[in-house]
């Protein structure tokens, strides 16, 4: 498997692996580390992946097993395989799809906002910037920013009701 093929077919599975790992481990950062380890292992095995029929299932199972190892090490006691959180691939796939749909919906709603409102909403609620940072970036007063935010959110709420 070439590097390009790996990037196109395997790396996009990251969001599924991350969702599964977070559900199993209960910690976002630990899940991110686990997923990265799994990705590296898949990279090392990339020549064998051409023979795998369902690469997504293979990757999910690799992530699942890695999470079980982490849980066992964490518990440091005997922890039978039946006691780990049992999360089906389909359940994860549904959640990932839901995230993608909601994200796409939000971005399409933001695209309909006036430019300034869109920028301020993105900075405040997506990039999680503080008001003073937005004041500096937009060269606006805080009262103007709050007014703009309020109008933007009102528009978004009305859009959602429709």
């Amino acid at each position, binding site marked *: 498997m070439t590097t390009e093929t790996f990037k196109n077919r395997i790396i*996009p599975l990251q969001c599924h692996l991350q969702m599964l790992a977070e559900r199993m481990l209960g910690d976002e950062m630990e899940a991110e580390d686990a997923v990265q380890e799994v990705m590296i292992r898949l990279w090392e095995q990339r020549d064998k992946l051409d023979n795998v029929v369902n690469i997504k299932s293979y990757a999910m199972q690799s992530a699942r097993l890695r999470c079980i190892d982490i849980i066992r090490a964490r518990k440091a006691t005997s922890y039978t395989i039946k006691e780990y959180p049992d999360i089906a691939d389909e359940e994860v796939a549904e959640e990932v799809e839901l995230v993608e749909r909601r994200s796409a919906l939000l971005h399409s709603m933001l695209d309909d906002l006036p430019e300034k409102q869109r920028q301020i909403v993105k900075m405040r609620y997506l990039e999680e910037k503080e008001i003073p940072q937005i004041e500096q970036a937009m060269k606006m007063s805080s009262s103007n920013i709050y007014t703009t935010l309020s109008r933007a959110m009102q528009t978004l709420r009305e859009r959602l009701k429709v």
Partner: protein
Amino acid sequence: MNTNDKIEELFEAAKRHEKDMQRQQRISELVDQLAAEESATNKHTKRRAIWATMGIAAGILLMVSIGLRALHPDMPDNTKHIVALNNSSSIVIDSTSHRAETTTDISSSSVKTALHKDMEILIAESAIDDSNTATEPTLEHEFPIQDNNLIAENETQENEEVSVATTEKKVYVRTSNRLVGNGSQQRSHHSSSENTPLMAFSGTGTSVLYDLGKITFNNH
């Protein structure tokens, strides 16, 4: 669920999606790094294989030349080579004793030559006399290197050490310019034709590089 909660869900999903994109970007960069490291390791292995091949080829050439010498006693002794530095000076390199002697007044700096012999690369330091006395060559035969053997000629600066190193089919000419004070800079690199050994010579004034595969020996 009220509208505010729904909006919040949308924002949470968008933030999560953005994080996933950033994570995928990081993994992609990591994969590029791993691929580059793998490629470098493979090149190193290939290089060693090519060196081994070149060494065997050089060994065969040596055997052939010994054999030919045995058949033709008049063939010149090719353990001594004269390398022309420039129009007025030359240096004699004896690959057996690893000594180099100059015919004219080259300034007193160490001269390093890299020669292929069997499977070894020999670095010979010159025996140039620091008193700057010229030494006449005492060979019975001369083997002038023809102009078409010359691959490259570079001007070197005063107090600049020049060294050569070979890898694969390329020779790197490196300089350490003391005027600059530190490090070494790659001056140039050259490829040999086929898999023939390269002979390089450097010293203050000029560095020259010859392809031994193109050398013709003239019996004067």
